[in-house]
């Protein structure tokens, strides 16, 4: 598997210690945007731990994904402050607008939408993060504009006029 070649140097940075399991998985997750099965098997061999342990850790923590994620990771905050200001509705709207639905990833692999337990921006609720950008003071109307901004085949300009323009403009 050619992509596994990229795992080798990643693994080489770490000592063969159990404590490095989570940091290694984080590196793989960052590099591949998911944890390929073969990579997990290699990690298990390297650290001399059973594959079951690696698999358990990989499925326990939220920042790991065993399935390929979309090109953009959309994290909609469901912290309490966001919830009381309608974060759940924003999430639902985001799932529809991206086409990700409840499965998490849109069929065109553009977006993965995940609810997230508090981004710590409660003062600006409701918020969501797309890749590295955080958007504040959302409502349902702003979602389409934000999604379109990241979608390669939709132009932000075609956003219906009524939808209020999102507060954030990033290229």
């Amino acid at each position: 598997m050619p992509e596994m070649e990229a795992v080798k140097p990643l693994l080489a940075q770490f000592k063969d210690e159990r404590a490095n399991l989570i940091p290694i998985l984080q590196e793989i997750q960052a590099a591949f945007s998911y944890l390929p099965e073969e990579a997990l098997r290699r990690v298990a061999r390297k650290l001399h731990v059973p594959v079951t342990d690696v698999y358990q850790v990989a499925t326990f923590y939220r920042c790991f994904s065993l399935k390929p994620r979309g090109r953009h990771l959309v994290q909609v905050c469901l912290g309490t402050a966001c919830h009381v200001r309608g974060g759940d509705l924003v999430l639902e709207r985001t799932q529809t607008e991206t086409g990700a639905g409840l499965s998490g990833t849109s069929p065109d692999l553009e977006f993965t939408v995940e609810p997230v337990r508090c981004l710590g921006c409660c003062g600006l609720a409701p918020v969501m993060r797309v890749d590295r950008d955080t958007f504040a003071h959302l409502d349902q109307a702003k979602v389409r504009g934000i999604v379109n901004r990241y979608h390669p085949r939709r132009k932000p300009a075609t956003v219906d006029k009524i939808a209020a323009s999102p507060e954030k403009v990033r290229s």
Partner: protein
Amino acid sequence: MVHITMNGLAVEAECGSSLLEVARFYNFPIPTLCHEDGLNSYGACRLCLVEIGEGPKSKLVAACGYRVEEGMKVRTNSMRVQRARRLLLELYVATCPQSKRIQDLASEYGVRQCRYQPVDGQPGAPWDPKANCIQCGLCVRICAEQMMAGAIGFSGRGKSRHVARPFGMTSEQCRQCGACLYACPVCELRCQASTAESLLCNGCLNFSPVCFQSYSDAMCFLEPCHTCELSGPFRHEVGIKVHALHDAGQKVAPSTGELK
């Protein structure tokens, strides 16, 4: 040796032993579902709750994992313990109504009602291994600790936690020894007396001998069913149990792993 008071009785216990060991040594019955001698204690089933301490600082702890301390006061059958046990068994019945072991315990400890609604598929319908497994972890521990295989483990967390094989496939470590089946506390004979109206059987209270032999099909909580892949000679040894498991497993086990 440490000195403790257990149910008002001054007793001696060996240093480092668990409350469960001490209680059983002195013949105080404590029900368990996730404890098996020879395996590390795990503390998942919570059925072995006992009350320690006195007054407002008293609390319930799992006896299997709590080590004796000098001078501690333990009560294995206080009102509080009984209430917890009953509520717990009510919850167990709702989770796995087809387990005869659980129904028996519920009868024994005086559970007279089950106020929960059946989970999807219950009752009568084939069990859903993910929903009905009580996750006592005995299969996982016997595989790792006694068979030195570590072929199965837990996956996920919270409501989506379940016993699984990595990537939904039998791993190289699995020798198909069947120890996991042997260890499972609830996959023995199936209680079929629970109905949609009442998940609680309580049949064992009313009839003797208990739960006639007619219910001979067993359950398996691995997904996909582990036994379905066991080979012939083994099936002979375990006999009817595995046969039944096999048939049942065919019906319910999704053939795809969660990854594919």
